[in-house]
């Protein structure tokens, strides 16, 4: 049986009252978690933004650059129950049953093709898929449906999944066209690079501390600042804000209120420049999602309107290593940062 999806039908008024409190909790969470890493604050911030916006986040980087560690500590820090978390390293031999559960033999005898999804991706609210692009086409199709439509098929019938936050990691960004669709689902793709060149001693110190914690089975980052529900509530609250219309019913009140005209124009200019000069493909879907992410970041960081600084999220639009490198320098340069 599918696990019932926890109720997330919080009312706007209820959330409005909690909004400031939620924001503070999440901010405390992200800055506290940053203490346990060297130069990964930006990635943790992104994880928080992605978690609130419920957009998948892809971490890219060579082995040993703390990609998995970031997710694992994030998971510990929000103290998510075991049954709500799913983590898997994909290979090209990974079978669908390893991700969405094996076929229930008893049910199969009765002619029903049902998967036992308990403890697998469909029942998890937070998931981490390592080496996501190594998966084969069977897994890819399942993932696409789950990420995009938040559902999977049981005996031919679509069923909603509990998944709210998805983090994925990869060592390399593939060029193959068949992986393009999955890549496109990740609006944000952030590079987790090596920090040893500039923070050698910090890295050694932090690494050794981490070793000690692991050996002694201690998790000091589990500070209870916030929970997954807090992220979901924040997300819900933002959704309510997005839905508000102005009196004429045509313009989003959210944009009129929270997205100043000059910043919006700058956003437009940036996108047009990237598309024209650097041939960076930005789909319409991504544009909309970007808007949402800017708003979430602005709310989380300042509680107010979107600023030029929030446009930094465009740095994470790159689809290839070259694009990522280019955007990492070009966006701050264009923004004058």
């Amino acid at each position, binding site marked *: 049986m599918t696990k019932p999806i926890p109720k997330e039908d919080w009312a706007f008024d209820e959330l409005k009252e909690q909004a400031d409190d939620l924001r503070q909790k999440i901010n405390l969470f992200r800055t506290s978690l940053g203490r346990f890493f060297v130069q990964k604050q930006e990635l943790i911030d992104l994880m928080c933004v992605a978690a609130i916006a419920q957009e998948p986040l892809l971490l890219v980087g060579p082995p040993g650059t703390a990609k998995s560690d970031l997710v694992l500590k994030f998971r510990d820090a929000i103290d998510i129950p075991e049954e709500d978390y799913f983590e898997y390293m994909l290979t090209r031999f990974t079978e669908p049953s390893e991700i969405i559960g094996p076929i229930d033999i008893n049910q199969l005898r009765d002619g029903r093709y049902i998967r036992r999804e308990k403890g697998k991706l469909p029942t998890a609210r937070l998931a981490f898929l390592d080496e996501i692009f190594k998966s084969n086409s069977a897994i890819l199709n399942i993932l696409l449906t789950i990420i995009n439509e938040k559902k999977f098929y049981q005996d031919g019938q679509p069923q909603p999944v509990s998944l709210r936050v998805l983090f994925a990691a990869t060592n390399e960004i593939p060029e193959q066209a068949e992986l393009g669709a999955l890549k496109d689902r990740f609006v944000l793709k952030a590079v987790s690079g090596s920090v040893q060149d500039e923070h050698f001693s910090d890295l050694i110190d932090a690494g050794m501390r981490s070793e000690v914690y692991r050996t002694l089975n201690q998790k000091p980052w589990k500070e209870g600042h916030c929970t997954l529900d807090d992220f979901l509530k924040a997300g819900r609250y933002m959704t309510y804000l997005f839905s508000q219309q102005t009196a004429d019913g045509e313009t989003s009140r959210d944009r009129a209120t929270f997205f100043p005209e000059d910043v919006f124009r700058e956003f437009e*200019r940036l996108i*047009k*420049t990237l598309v*024209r*000069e650097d041939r960076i493909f930005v789909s319409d879907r991504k544009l909309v999602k970007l808007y949402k992410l800017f708003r979430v970041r602005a709310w989380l960081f300042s509680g107010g309107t979107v600023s030029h600084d929030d446009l930094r999220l465009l740095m994470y639009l790159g689809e290839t290593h070259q694009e990522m490198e280019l955007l990492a320098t070009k966006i701050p340069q*264009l923004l*004058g940062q």
Partner: protein
Amino acid sequence: MILQFPDLQTLQLALTSGTISTETAISPAKVAWAVDGSIWVDAEMKLSAASKNQLRSWGVTGRRSAAKAGSKLQDVRCWPQMIPVTREAKIQQTGDKTPVLFELPDESQLPDVVNEILRQGNDRQSFRTVVGDGDAGSRVLLRVLGPPYYSLLRALERRDDAADGIKAFVERSARVWIQVGYCHPLAVSIKPAAGQHLLIEPSGWRTLKEEPFRDVYEVLDFQLPSETHELKNTDDELQLAVPVGLVRGGSDDVAELFVLKKNAIEQLEQFVRSSSDEVIERLSFVVSQGGGQGSEDTTVVIRIRPGRTKPPVLVFDGVAYRRYLNISNLFVPIGLRVHPPLRRDAVKHMLAADDGLIVWVEPDVPEDVPQVSTSTPFAPCFVNDSAFRPLAQWVDYIIDRDANAMTAWKAAHQFDFEGFVCRDDQARTSTSKKSKKTAEKKSTTRKLSGKKSAGEASSSKETDSDSDGEPEDDLKSFKPPRKFKKTQDPTDAQYAEMQKQLKVLESEFLAADVALDDPSREPMWTQMAEANRAVSQFVDAGICHQHEIWEQQIPNVEALRAWFETEVDAARHTKTKLLPSSEGIVADSNLAKLLKTVAPSTNQVAQLASFVAWGCQNPTAADVIRSKQVAIQNFLEKHEGFLSVRTCWLAWSALANLSGDVLTLARVRDRMLNRLYQQGLTADRDLPSFLRMSGSQSGDRFRAVRGKVTELHDHVREWCRSNLVDASPLTLDYVDLIFSYAFARLGESSLSRKTLLAAGERLKRNSDDVHEWLHDAFEYRIKQSVGGQQASGPFPDALLERLDAIPKLARYKVDRLRQHSTILEPHEQLDPYRAWRRKNLNDLQNELSELFDVFSRSELLDRLKALFKRKLDPDNKARLITTALELSTRLGEKFAIKMLGYVVSADGKLSDTLLRASLLEKGLHISAHYDQAEFAHACLERMHKLIDGQGKADVATLEALESLLSRSFSGLRKLGMREEIATLLDRMTKQVRPTKAKAIEPERMRVLLQLAGGWFYFGQDRGWKDIDAARSVLLSTKLTSEGHVGAKKQTDLAVAYIRAVGQAPLNDAVDRLFELFDKLRGIHDSATVNTHYSLKQLDIVDALVQTIVSDSFTMNKESQRWLDDEEFLIRRRIHRDVRQMMP
């Protein structure tokens, strides 16, 4: 007069078709736009009857009054103003050099916009403040060259909000600016009044007085902190003594040298017993008593010789060393490195400055302390490189038991093996001893390159035969078994196996540390030819066969037949007509048919050439050839351009031997030598693919270069554009033409064509003789390159005739570029001033320069003879001899030898260094070209004297030396004179390098750069210091601040720098070139020619392009050396054959 035009299109048609005359069109008028779309124009105009009829036919009617127009008449400055601007569907991309005018309604917006554009790396901004009519405040006009699209978008987003938004205008024609995002159909034809700019926007036209713009840097303030701390130099000379030691590091590298001290000989014996001969082939060794550190024991040093494959992994009870910092003769223990980390050149200088020594550093650690924990002192040990001997020569494999003779059960199958003679044991022993002796003898020779050059080999070959006096018959009669009989329709596995075997053969070939003409390579060529043929690589198979035969005094008939069969196979493979019939016989009729073919394919010509080479040795075929000899000769002569020099010569020499016709052979020799002189060898035709690609992936290198050139093109354009100053902007189109040539040479034919077309369109727009002729000349050279030919030789007659019709000054501008461009005139140097010098009939230089335009051999000879009859002073005599030598490749060997005879005596009478250098360089080149060793040595000796006497060389001398060097290096190395170049380099370095630390003048620097480039050729990077010094001068304003003279010096230095850097390792070279064009400033041209192009800039671009398309840039050093050796061997055989046939 009032005209009513039915619509806007008709008005536009009337203007563009000339029905409304230009005078009328540019005069003011009144216009009213009626509701029905018609346009009423009230203007003073005179219309011809034809124009009136034309207008009437288009529905234009004359009116007496505009009352019926329905709207008020408005004043316009001219007729084109009546046509409104239209919005562009897509904003056009502005180029890097396109000027854009931003109109900022508020002065306070200026810092934001300027900063934003600066942030994106564009500082080509200038501004002025203007006050418009009736405007409340002032506006700022910001002029930016090639603004970033991001900033341009600022103007576009406010397009409709004209009152307070930023507007941008782009210059569509001279001083006509149209708002970005709009276009006007007549923009190109509008000519604003002098001293005015015209701004066209949807709201109307505005004029702007022409006034200077201020550079933004004039108003930019860079604020520094108030407190400054000045650091002062102390007078004390500080000397820091830093002990150098070894620390841990670099454990991943592979060992390439082993030093054995414990039971060294026993270890070596044990090793050879258990190792494959393949591994042993890779090793050389040296045995010594007392191997460093005071030891008295026997020490054996084993070294893995460089090869194409990775070094084998060996295990010895000794210290394993790795090559350090890629210095070929310095080794440090595996797992250790030199501490403190020093620059490569410093390490080399300190430890391994002498390239003739192999140096390894032994850590000074007691034996019971194996680990080097902290910096440990070391002792450098060394041995002469020439002392190393190939280990394989010291190993004899013996079989303990007698061989049992096996008898065939049934002669069911006969293998197609060649007969061979096996040397008996006694002979083998004596040869083995002989090898040892020879190795010992050879060990005294010091080598510059890893492999022996072809010239060295021939001398060592002579030494071998001299030393033991044994006949070489044994060697000659040995024929390798022809293993690679092609299997009919091989399976994939068989095919893969054959390829694998071919690869092994190629690896063995590359690993062999003998010269290209060494007899031991002959069986290798045979095997590779068969292997290539088996895997259907017929071109390579053909080339291998030719190499197999090339050094044979008496050609091997079997090999010649195999070559012919290979060419026939190739023809079959490409479905070309076959020369032999299905029975394998070349019948008269087939041959006759081929000889009548008007446009034969390459393969058909190759079939004939190989048939002739083989057929002349075969009695039956020889009869067929004899019967058609004249036709064959005509056919070969006509189509020999399809063939490699080697193929041509094999066919022609066979023919000449058959008929005993020395004269024909001598003429062919002259043609072939001229071809080598003009074009050199082509790797594609003369080297098998594995040699072309030998070393570190030459193909990758070529692709990398090709990838970078497009990028470099943009950089160079930008550099050129920003340094034009007064020169014509069409210079950029010449840059495009030069790059089009580069693209063509690098195989990017479509890109080359595209670039050529675009540049051509712009250059021909002005109908200028100079631009048109130069464009056509470049186009001719580019098309030669695209067609795979060498871009050289005289231009077509039609083009030269057009040149004669060009007026004198324009002709000068054409000739000036021809004089400078090595693309247009790759071999001959023109004198652009000759038209002026003609007035003085006694001017010898004028007459000499005219000789280059004479293409009739007999006329040229007559004119030269007449000049020699004149009484000339020593300087002019030297000039005449130099020119005659230059032209001698056209006039043949006899003439050249005569001229060479004059060189030494003429040089003795000269005092001008420039003339001496020029004469001797030419003499050396031509004597090497015609294989005149005596003259070559005489020239070289004089050259050394010339160099030795230049201790305190002045500017003119240095320039002479530079020109001497630049022409000598490329030519001489192909003539097998590598040792001579090395000596020349060495002497020159000693003379030119200043002994005291002082500022080096640019002329000296150029010579040093030439030397640096020369050393790179030998794989030595001792020139970096000079390159860096030149770089710092080039990137500063030191020279350009000296005005025109400085700019010229800067240009020459930049050219020398590019050439030197072009010889460096690829990555370094590319980085340096990019950097140069990003940072080089201040080179511009104010000469007469700058109305058409900036010569100085084109000089630099020409040098750049010739550098990047040169073999030294696109091929790695190893492949280059193969090609140089090839050319030497080809020349040697050509001269040998002719000499042997001479009575």
